[in-house]
């Protein structure tokens, strides 16, 4: 498996430099002070997987490199496993870099101490695996152009709900209520006292989501012709 990770890192090295650049700008730009902790947790578990999975996949599509990867002496299942492991490596590398950076250069001890609790880390792990479990199969099945079309479609959906609510006159907007419910869920997870059973539950569910993600992506990848 080590050779696979090395292959992924070498093949995507230019993309990883750009990814590192974005990470640096992102951590400089973001000021954790005026964002609620639960929102920053949610936001991080959304941004980091998006950057890793999408950026590596972009180069695959552009250079039609799947033909090369599939011709190497390996089978498709291991290729996807390598992709998942590399994505997680990148996510944790970006996270460690970010926390180190904010520890050294930014004065927000509150954010750091709260984030470094075992409970928040596990919640971050759970949320990122959830998002990665949606992103990886989607990118394999529809490719990067699919992701862009998906984001634009979401945008249009947002506008339609916006117009509907302003027309129908009721104050509460469906979109905003959806976002609130997600943030409340995160709040609920955060406020739950960190009993070992609870922490174990978080860990197990994160592992289950990743296992599902692996199996489903492999299933989709086996179907693709190159």
């Amino acid at each position, binding site marked *: 498996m080590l*050779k696979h990770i*090395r*292959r992924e890192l*070498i*093949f995507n*090295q*230019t993309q990883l430099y750009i990814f590192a650049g974005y990470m640096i700008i992102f951590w400089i730009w973001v000021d954790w002070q005026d964002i609620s902790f639960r929102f920053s947790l949610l936001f991080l578990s959304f941004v980091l997987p998006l950057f890793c999975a999408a950026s590596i996949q972009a*180069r695959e599509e552009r*250079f*039609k*490199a799947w*033909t*090369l990867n*599939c*011709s*190497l*002496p*390996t*089978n498709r299942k*291991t290729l996807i496993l390598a992709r998942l492991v590399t994505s997680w490596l990148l996510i944790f590398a970006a996270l460690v870099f970010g926390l180190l950076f904010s520890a050294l250069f930014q004065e927000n001890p509150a954010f750091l101490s709260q984030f470094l609790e075992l409970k928040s880390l596990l919640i971050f792990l759970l949320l990122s695996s959830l998002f990665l479990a949606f992103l990886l199969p989607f990118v394999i099945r529809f490719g990067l152009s699919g992701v862009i079309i998906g984001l634009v479609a979401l945008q249009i959906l947002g506008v339609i709900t916006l117009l509907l609510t302003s027309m129908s006159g009721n104050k509460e907007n469906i979109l905003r209520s959806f976002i609130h419910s997600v943030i409340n869920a995160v709040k609920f997870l955060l406020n739950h006292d960190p009993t070992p059973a609870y922490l174990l539950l978080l860990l197990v569910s994160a592992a289950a989501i990743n296992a599902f993600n692996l199996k489903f992506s492999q299933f989709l990848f*086996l*179907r693709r*012709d*190159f």
Partner: protein
Amino acid sequence: MEYTVEIENLRKEFKGFTLKDVSLRIPKGYIMGLIGPNGAGKTTIIKLIMNLIRKNSGRILVFGKDHIRYEAEIKSRIGFVYDVPPFYEDLKLKSTASAIAPFYPEWNQQLFLKLMDEFELPLDKKLKKLSHGMKMKFSLCLALSHHADLILMDEPTSGLDPVFRQELLERLSHIMLDEEKTVLFSTHITSDLERIADYITLINNGKILFSKALNDVLENWVVIKAEKDLLEKKDIPGIMGYQKTEYGIEILTSDVKKARTLLPSDSITEKASLEDIMYFTNKGDNNA
């Protein structure tokens, strides 16, 4: 006769094209040439062997093992050269090589460097700076550097100048001295095949017309040129295709001995080149 690759009624359906129940056996220790018009299915067969595309039905055995269950082990002994080199364009040659080297147990770095030097390929140049010919040379380098027992090549010689083509063919025949190696390569330049291939397989819109030893084809296949009315195409044994021309009729037959007995004195018979064979079987007035 041991076979490196055995394909039994392989079927693959695409929107506009189907590979219809292809059965093919590639003997070990020989070079097999795969020829056929554009879009006849040559690339499809190579991709099916490499499991790049999924087959609808049929069985493929490589080194006697099923090509999907033992995929990793089989592929470690296959060298591949595709008509479009599938490498990352913005990577240096040496980083591409160093990324894939650990995958091949028998990778030989000295051999790789020697080949790169021989093919005059700069290690530190990015792939997108190279011409098409040099990209093909690079994929050849990679394919030959891990002592592959089976070398699959999809139009390796297109875009290469005659001098390098000759060297490549010499290198291939040099490799073939060791009985274990097998080569399957598809090409459009029939003169290359006539110089080096031991077996020839002709494929035409998804069907294999024949898969024979080259010298058997070159000796027994002839083109008979005669006046039109003289010859009725029905009674020529081993007829494979014919073409009506202003001077008369040209008939391709695979059995010169039998055909000669029936021929009128003034008809001319010439040895059929691979190009003629492709011409008659594909473009001839009938697709016999």
